[in-house]
């Protein structure tokens, strides 16, 4: 027999559920708070504007300008999304609308394998394949001399890395659209492409935005593979062939070293805070668009 009667068991389990929920729900706030406290030293002594928009990064002489890192992160992320977004959308439409179901069953494991590859492996692949490819072919093609370690290399590696994540969501999004909607459009005399373009993509739009939002957040935070190919030079990149530096790479490269420099640790924590804030921002923007869409169209 049980130690407690069923009403008591109900109460105990109920309490545990609440405790777990509170724990999960409070984690982001605790993270924010922790990072804020850790970077307080820096924020307290400097203007927020100076920190975010100054280009000079000389921790030894107390100059902390995060602008090159922020710009580097944004370039790499946006370029990666620019490459992967259309590829993912077209692939998702093709495998869900134009092929037999069996094909999707083969695709899924392939995508999952791609998603499961450790990022350091992607980094190595970037160094061995992408970097020389850019320095030998792409650079000369545009008449640019480059070592290959560049924003472009990071973006290419990153775009391959986020494809499985975005693609998996997109496939799910398109699969949940009822086939009757497709039938309705076709029966009105639309071609398959017109159906895809005017009906299915429209119907899927909130899901597509969400998929891209997740991809963006992931790309923005990706550390290892990017730091291996981006060049890690603190300088404002003038073109995609220039090397750059990203926020996650800054933290990963320096944390644990040079902590004897005053405020250095605070500065790295501040970089982490920016990362978190930007992810949060992406998330809010995404939800804003989805809500708006659900309210005013569809």
């Amino acid at each position, binding site marked *: 027999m049980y130690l407690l009667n069923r009403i008591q068991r109900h109460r105990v389990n109920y309490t545990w559920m609440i405790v777990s929920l509170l724990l999960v729900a409070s984690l982001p706030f605790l993270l924010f708070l922790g990072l804020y406290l850790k970077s307080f030293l820096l924020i307290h002594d400097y203007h927020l504007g100076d920190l975010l928009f100054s280009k000079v990064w000389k921790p030894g002489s107390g100059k902390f300008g995060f602008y090159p890192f922020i710009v580097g992160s944004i370039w790499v992320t946006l370029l990666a999304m620019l490459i992967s977004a259309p590829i993912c959308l077209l692939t998702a439409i093709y495998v869900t609308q134009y092929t*037999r*179901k069996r094909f999707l069953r083969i695709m899924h494991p392939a995508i999952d394998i791609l998603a499961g590859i450790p990022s350091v492996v992607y980094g190595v692949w970037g160094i061995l394949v992408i970097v020389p490819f850019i320095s030998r072919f792409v650079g000369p093609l545009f008449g640019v001399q480059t070592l290959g370690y560049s924003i472009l290399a990071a973006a290419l590696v990153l775009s391959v890395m986020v494809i499985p994540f975005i693609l998996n969501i997109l496939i799910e999004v398109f699969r949940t659209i*009822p*086939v*009757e*909607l*497709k*039938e*309705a*459009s*076709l*029966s*009105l*005399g*639309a*071609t398959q492409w*017109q159906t895809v373009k*005017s*009906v299915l993509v*429209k*119907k899927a739009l909130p899901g597509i935005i969400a998929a891209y939002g997740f991809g963006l957040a992931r790309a923005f935070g990706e550390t290892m593979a990017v730091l291996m190919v981006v060049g890690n030079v603190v300088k404002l990149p003038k073109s995609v062939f220039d090397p750059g530096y990203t926020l996650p790479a800054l933290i990963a490269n320096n944390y644990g070293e040079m902590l004897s420099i005053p405020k250095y640790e605070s500065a790295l924590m501040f970089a982490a805070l920016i990362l978190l804030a930007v992810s949060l921002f992406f998330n809010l923007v995404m939800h804003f668009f989805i809500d708006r869409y659900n309210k*005013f*169209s*569809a």
Partner: protein
Amino acid sequence: MEPTTKIHIENLNVYAGKQQILKNINIEIPKNKITVILGPSGCGKTTLLKCMNRLTDLYPELKVTGKVMINDKNVLEAGEDIVKLRQYMGLLSQRPYPLPMTIYNNIAFGLKLKGVKKRRNLHKQVVRYLQQANLWDEVKNRLREPASRLSIGQQQRLCLARGLAVNPEIILADEPTSALDPISSQYIEEKFVELKNDYTIVLVTHVLRQARRIADFVVFMYLGEVIEQGTVEEVFGNPKMEKTKQYLGGTFN
């Protein structure tokens, strides 16, 4: 006077892998009449309907053989023309699936596909078809709202208007009232009786009373076969086959 045949189905067979879903179907669907396809769930009624405008294309696992003749064209061998052929047939499905756009654009979508371009003309026709489906008074002030905000009954009327807007000759309806309340259902039924003057209607249903109320012709199907077909008086009043008698008498098993 003998009614003229609008849809002529000959030796239609549909296979899904090794399973045969439709077995040697031969039907004549008369013009300007309501033909009801009757039968228990899973007997192939919906598949038969989908063969008529070849929505079977969406299910690559299906293999379709035979002939579905509409206006002397075999739908099954139409190739690219199927896009145009489908516009001869409006489709009304079990539940309304409004297109993910405004009420206005739900109607305008088909019109634009038909080549209506001028704004004023477009608007005139949208109004006309919404009126024809008795929806205009309810939506005239909310044409720019998403269609998903309408009630289910209104959505089904919108789908009817949308189907009529491409100016079809045939209406294919697949249990169009099964998700609706009695009043909306009655409304659709009355509309069908009114519409048969201008259209040929094929209605799939398993509601016997509905069939009796509005059918001119009845096709009774069971397990992928046509068991019996004829006028509503023949099939309901004097069924020849044992299976039909059982189904109509409610002693089916």
